[in-house]
């Protein structure tokens, strides 16, 4: 096992990783920006040091300072969390080259899966289900039109280097294609410095279903059930649950099998998430693989009883997975709400000082957060301030428990998405599990009507 791990992140995920270190008896080093000198992750860690000013590019993304910090504190491993350097193949590679273990997949895994059209091609070669679309990148709008004619409208144009909805365009008919292609190209160029585009069939009312996998360094790979992340706004997830109301045992096994095949196709190591689109006829298609721990990992922990972050560390330290696939049992149902420091109607950030924070508690309630009363929410960073996670014997108990937890939760001094979450939990369609990725859009339309 490692002696000391540097946690190259901040906020709730840094706290989460430090907790895992403590439970494993491994020392932890927090790094922080000037703005985070009093942050919770800094107080929790065994050691800490400042790595730069508030701007993420100069601190939490500052590879030289982070590696120096690891060196002078004699860390033998680095956990990148999500965001910042979470999926940075170069960073993983540098860590590998100087003998500091990067707790995550190989730099090659990250690079392969980071290039979306490349990953897609690879899946096709392995005979795995991908969305109908172009084979690799498309060079021109003419090529795009040919692909679209073959797979049928509507189609979606995506940036190969894409993420977070940027560089994406939905096209409903041929005459709109040329303009959309150019727009997506320009956006991709400015957002990612990479104009590579590809085309896929666009589905109405799909679900976003993702499967958590774990693979040890010997290649043993298991799936840990799915997460339904369909409640999202502009590709930002707001509520996640597991099991999905749309997935039965048979489909779960099938999803799990394919997710493991995806991982094995690239000799994947450590924790990862395979994202699928599930259409109305319960057919599913590979979308992409996230090569990091995800924000919503706790719901999988709740229903499997497996501590994913500790497993990441144990795998990176060379330990074998102690479970076979048949040992993984899904127990009950879990939901996560992401509480963001945002105006609940317009999603504009709401930084400031939290004058009162009262987290919910009691049975089946877990809170992952780095805030407390008096914390300052900085405009420099992500607006996620707390994750409320509940676990119940079934979806009904989970829903009632989350409704209760949302009512108990008090955040004063800034605006948060709490009121929005409460309203969603009152929605009959949501309660019945009838929703797709377009749920929130319709929800807002109905609410403002």
């Amino acid at each position: 096992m490692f002696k000391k791990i540097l946690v190259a992140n901040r906020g709730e995920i840094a706290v989460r990783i430090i907790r895992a270190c403590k439970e494993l008896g491994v020392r932890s080093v927090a790094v922080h920006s000037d703005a985070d000198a009093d942050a919770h992750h800094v107080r929790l860690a065994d050691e800490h040091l400042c790595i730069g000013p508030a701007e993420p590019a100069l601190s939490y993304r500052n590879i030289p300072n982070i590696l120096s910090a690891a060196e002078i504190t004699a860390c033998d491993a680095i956990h990148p969390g999500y965001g910042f350097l979470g999926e940075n193949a170069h960073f993983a590679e540098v860590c590998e080259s100087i003998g500091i273990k990067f707790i995550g997949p190989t730099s090659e895994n990250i690079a392969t899966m980071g290039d979306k059209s490349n990953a897609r091609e690879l899946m096709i070669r392995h005979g795995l289900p991908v969305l109908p679309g172009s084979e690799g990148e498309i060079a021109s709008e003419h090529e795009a039109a040919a692909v679209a004619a073959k797979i049928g409208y509507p189609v979606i144009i995506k940036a190969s280097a894409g993420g977070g909805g940027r560089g994406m365009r939905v096209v409903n008919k041929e005459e709109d294609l040329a303009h959309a292609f150019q727009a997506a190209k320009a956006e991709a160029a400015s957002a990612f410095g990479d104009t590579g585009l590809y085309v896929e069939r666009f589905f109405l009312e799909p679900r976003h279903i993702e499967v958590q996998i774990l693979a040890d360094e010997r290649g043993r790979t298991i799936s840990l059930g799915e997460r339904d992340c369909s409640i999202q706004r502009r590709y930002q997830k707001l509520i996640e649950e597991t099991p999905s109301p749309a997935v039965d045992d048979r489909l779960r096994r099938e999803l799990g099998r394919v997710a493991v095949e995806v991982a094995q196709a690239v000799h994947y190591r450590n924790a990862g998430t395979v994202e699928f689109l599930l259409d109305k006829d319960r057919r599913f298609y590979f979308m992409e693989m996230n090569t990091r721990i995800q924000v919503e990992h706790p719901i999988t922990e709740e229903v499997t009883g497996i501590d994913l972050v500790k497993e990441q560390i144990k795998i990176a330290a060379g330990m074998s997975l102690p479970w076979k696939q048949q040992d993984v049992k899904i127990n009950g149902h879990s939901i996560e709400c992401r509480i963001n420091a945002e105006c609940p109607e317009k999603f504009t950030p709401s930084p400031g000082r939290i004058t009162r924070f009262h987290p919910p508690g009691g049975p089946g309630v877990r809170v992952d957060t780095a805030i407390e009363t008096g914390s300052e929410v900085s405009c420099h960073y992500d607006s996620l301030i707390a994750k409320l996670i509940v676990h119940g014997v079934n979806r009904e108990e989970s829903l009632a428990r989350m409704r209760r937890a949302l009512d108990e939760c008090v955040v004063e001094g800034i605006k948060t998405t709490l009121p929005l979450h409460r309203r969603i939990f009152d929605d009959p369609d949501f309660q019945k599990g009838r929703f797709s990725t377009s749920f929130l859009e319709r929800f807002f339309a109905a609410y403002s009507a």
Partner: protein
Amino acid sequence: MKRRAARAISKIAKSAPKPRPDALIDPKVLQELVDVFHSAGVADLEVERGGLRVRLRRQEAVVAGQSREITVPVSEALRQSGPVETPASLAETEGLITVTSPIVGVFYRSASPETEVYVEEGSYVRKGQVLCIVEAMKLMNEIESEVDGRVVKILVENTKPVEYGEALFLIEPGARPEA
């Protein structure tokens, strides 16, 4: 590197100067109000008289929306400027300049164990003169003085690790060797 960013406590000179006629308020009068306020154990004190209004509110009162006004600006400014430790605040009050580390690494006072140190306490330096090296990832980064002046204090021991923003030297700017 077990190191807590100490809360900078800057000492404000107690001998308040005589108020100029155009001053907003006599500092002594204000100080008296503040003293009464503190010993009074109230949350809020407002005094208005002849167009002058003074309002005192206790720091950190946990009331939604109010905290920003209450926060004492000095401590806020200090926090923003990084893990400033006592030397830095000394610098503020005494007109000294603090040279901080722009990177994370190991502090060296000389180019190699065999060579002489770049500067000593009391040394006069020119703008652009190398003060020390901070080694990061096997790279030697020379840290230069941004001013002409005198090295008043060297704050870090040779070969010790330093974090970003850590104070390395106190420089008295403008000081020149006597002719």
